[in-house]
């Protein structure tokens, strides 16, 4: 009868999956790329940050930027690895493409020896 007109419905914002789900979850509002808010769960990123014994506290903004930076990093390394796959005329990215990209790109030097 007297419907809750002022009810704003589920106010919960889309923060990405919080568990290890196999099925791809429907993403929240995807606005223009670049300023897109992070899809990586901030809780997981925070857990990584806290794993560093030297870190005392990290502000929410810092966690958010780290999450977004990690996304940009994934995009970047995927594209660089794809260049190698393209040269081999393959349509599937293999582990060796990634290794090649790491060796070829200076910025990825910090990854050497960490992925084995």
């Amino acid at each position, binding site marked *: 009868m007297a419907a809750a007109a002022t009810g704003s419905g589920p106010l919960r914002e889309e923060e990405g*999956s919080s568990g290890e789900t196999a099925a791809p979850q429907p993403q929240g509002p995807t606005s223009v790329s670049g300023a897109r808010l992070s899809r990586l769960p901030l809780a997981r990123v925070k857990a990584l940050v806290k794993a560093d014994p030297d870190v005392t506290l990290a502000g929410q903004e810092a966690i958010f930027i780290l999450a977004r930076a990690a996304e940009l990093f994934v995009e970047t390394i995927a594209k660089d690895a794809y260049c190698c796959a393209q040269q081999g005329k393959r349509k599937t990215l293999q582990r060796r493409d990634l290794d090649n990209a790491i060796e070829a790109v200076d910025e990825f030097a910090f990854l050497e020896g960490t992925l084995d």
Partner: protein
Amino acid sequence: MAERPEDLNLPNAVITRIIKEALPDGVNISKEARSAISRAASVFVLYATSCANNFAMKGKRKTLNASDVLSAMEEMEFQRFVTPLKEALEAYRREQKGKKEASEQKKKDKDRKTDSEEQDKSRDEDNDEDEERLEEEEQNEEEEVDN
């Protein structure tokens, strides 16, 4: 549970989605490559955290903030990330501000609503009484017809 920090992986589904969107349609990625990228992302976060922490300590702060992370990006030679990250930070701050204002507005609305609800209740009670009277009249008419 996690023996090494690198074992704290980010969710596979999200990593896969980011990779697929970065690459052209029709391109696939093997499971090994995907899990390697996921691990690389974790290592990246750890490395960036460590760099950012150095900046925080230099500033004699105990809490990592956004500018520490941005400085870390430059230090790690990922300057190309700095501009999109700054934009993302602006959007994030706007959203946080919006959320705060929305929750404050909600509080105000709630207070206003409880006041008006009390007025509505008394009005509804009057309506119910009218309906009951109408029904009774109809019943009376039927009885007369039967007789």
